């Protein structure tokens, strides 16, 4: 039985140290600009912080994977190339990339630097993955969150690179890397600017009866009663009206979090090489809790023991969770 690596998020150097201390095999993080898909104020690493963080991780036997998982628009390619140069110079263990030009640049300039194909590249078939492996020597693919365990198992057997799957955190069904919803409303592109639903475009409106509307740009994304917990307005998690339905409904997906805890044994048996925990925007305490819980769970399963996962529910968004696409395809 192969023991999958645990790949953990870090939005700050402090979170990176917490993740490493809690047992992460690798931490993923990005720079403070549009080269990564969590380009939010107060998050991410300066070059000096990245250098120190890589040293800390390596001293403790963990790897650092740098997220360059956005798409440089024409005229701005140099910023992404500089981020590649810096990552290679700092000794990053891999770059997680989505754009063909970024993958090509790494492949030509730094043949020894591992390329991991980001979920933003939306490679959801053996043929699409094979394209990136053949063209750029991609070593690992991060799978879209839309596949069942048996589909993942089939894929592992069929493709010539390692497979990484999400096991915890944000859950959405829009194909990542192929979504302009936020740009339609805010003018900021998830792919080019690295931000979906940027905070500057979010507003909250209270009505006299105590209901709270969450808004993005000029649109109401959801509405909550006085006793409900309001979620962050993300278009694909909102409630809308349509002719065939009575009242508002979650047209795309309910605001639930992915928690693959119960299917970890099957995923390990399927031969997955790495498990990814989402949440670079989350606190250091969250990272510590989630990473240490999954660390002991994976270790227990591989040792043939019963894993303990009780505390994870409390950490999920809106307290509701799902096994996502993993168990069945009836959600499609």
């Amino acid at each position, binding site marked *: 039985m192969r023991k999958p690596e645990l790949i953990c998020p870090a939005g700050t150097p402090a979170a990176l140290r917490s993740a490493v201390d809690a047992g992460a095999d690798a931490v993923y993080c990005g720079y403070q600009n549009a080269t990564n898909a969590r380009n939010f104020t107060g998050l991410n690493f300066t070059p000096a912080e990245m250098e120190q963080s890589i040293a800390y991780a390596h001293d403790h036997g963990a790897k650092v994977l740098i997220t360059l998982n956005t798409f*440089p*628009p*024409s*005229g*701005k*390619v140099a910023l992404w190339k500089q981020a590649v140069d810096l990552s290679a110079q700092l000794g990053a263990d891999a770059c997680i990339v989505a*754009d*063909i*030009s970024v993958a*090509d*640049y790494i492949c030509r300039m730094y043949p020894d630097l591992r390329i991991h194909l980001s979920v933003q590249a939306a490679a*959801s*078939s053996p*043929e*699409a993955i094979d394209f*990136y492996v053949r063209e750029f020597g991609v070593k690992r693919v991060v799978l*879209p969150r*839309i596949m069942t365990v048996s*589909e993942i198992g089939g894929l592992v057997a069929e493709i010539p690179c390692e497979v990484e799957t999400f096991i915890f955190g944000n859950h959405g*069904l*829009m*194909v990542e890397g*192929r*979504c*302009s*919803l936020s*740009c*339609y*409303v*805010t*003018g900021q*592109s998830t*792919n*080019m600017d690295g931000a979906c639903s940027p905070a500057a475009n979010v507003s909250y409106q209270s009505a006299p009866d105590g209901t709270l*509307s969450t808004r993005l*740009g*000029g*649109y*109401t994304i*959801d*509405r909550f009663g006085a006793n409900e917990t309001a979620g962050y307005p993300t278009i*694909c998690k*909102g*409630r*809308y*009206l*349509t*002719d*065939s*339905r009575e009242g*508002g*409904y979650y*047209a*795309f*997906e309910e605001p639930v979090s992915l928690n693959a805890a119960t299917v970890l044994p099957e995923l390990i048996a399927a031969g997955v090489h790495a498990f990814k925990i989402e949440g670079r925007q989350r606190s250091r305490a969250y990272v510590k809790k989630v990473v240490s819980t999954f660390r002991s769970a994976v270790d227990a399963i591989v040792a043939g023991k019963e894993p303990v996962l009780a505390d994870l529910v409390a950490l999920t968004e809106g307290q509701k969770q799902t096994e996502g*696409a993993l168990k069945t*395809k*009836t*959600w*499609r």
Partner: protein
Amino acid sequence: MDAQLTLGPNLFHWAPERKLDFYRRIADESPVGTVYLGEVVCSKRTPFFDDRHLEEVAERLTRAGKQVVYSSLAEVVIKRERKLLMEWSQQQGRDLEVNNTAALLHLKDRPHRIGALLNVYNEDTMAYLAGRGATHFSLLAELPKPAVAGLAEAARGLGVGVEVQVFGRASLALSARCYHARAHGRIKDSCQFVCGEDDDGMVLSTLDEKPFLAVNGIQTLSYGYLEMMAEMHEMRDMGVSHFRVMPHSCDMIEVTKAFDDVLQGRIEAAEGAARLGALGIAAPFVNGFYHGVPGDTLVPA
């Protein structure tokens, strides 16, 4: 070469007879030079029209002097879709437009087009793909003007075509889930082709009743229709060689004629826009992506 008007792939699940009529009229009356055919959105739809009528439609369009291009599926996950895409890629002697990376594997060193649903954001990616056989690029709807200009300039240097959508709802997102089926309490496997009930997509409005998006099976489109008549000449000067009009249920003969009249300089963009305005399209016209502001905006000419 003069800039040319094209008709993009029909994204909607119209009844076969209606699609047949639609393409007959396009063949006989529309000034478009190129017509893209083929199911892009949902593999379940192909038995209705593509498998039965595509050849006949392509022949009719070709006889009318139109260039026919075959567009591929955009989302390819399950075995059936992979098989469909593989067979599609192996068609010989046809002009193929790729909307999923998987097809690139099969088409290495064979001429092909890159569709507007593949991520080509910069000149390096364009040059890379041109180096392995791409001859024509349809650009993503969300690209702002400086990126369109940069890509058009690169395309000129590479000797490849570059195409921009100037009319119709913009494709904003793709999913593995069918949102049409979901709205009707079904799933993709039991959808009963409910997407066929909405000619231009199923409108989603916000809880305060502001129309927002249009669902088309696994695809989410903008509620607003892109309308870029006023920008066409500027884009042509940048090097954009083709302008794409997307099929909708409104009078597409009049739409394509109006765009062609503007493109050929026979009328001003304002007059063209007035003709579009008279077609009774309920949704607003938008052009914000190109102008670097929210896509749902209409920036006046």
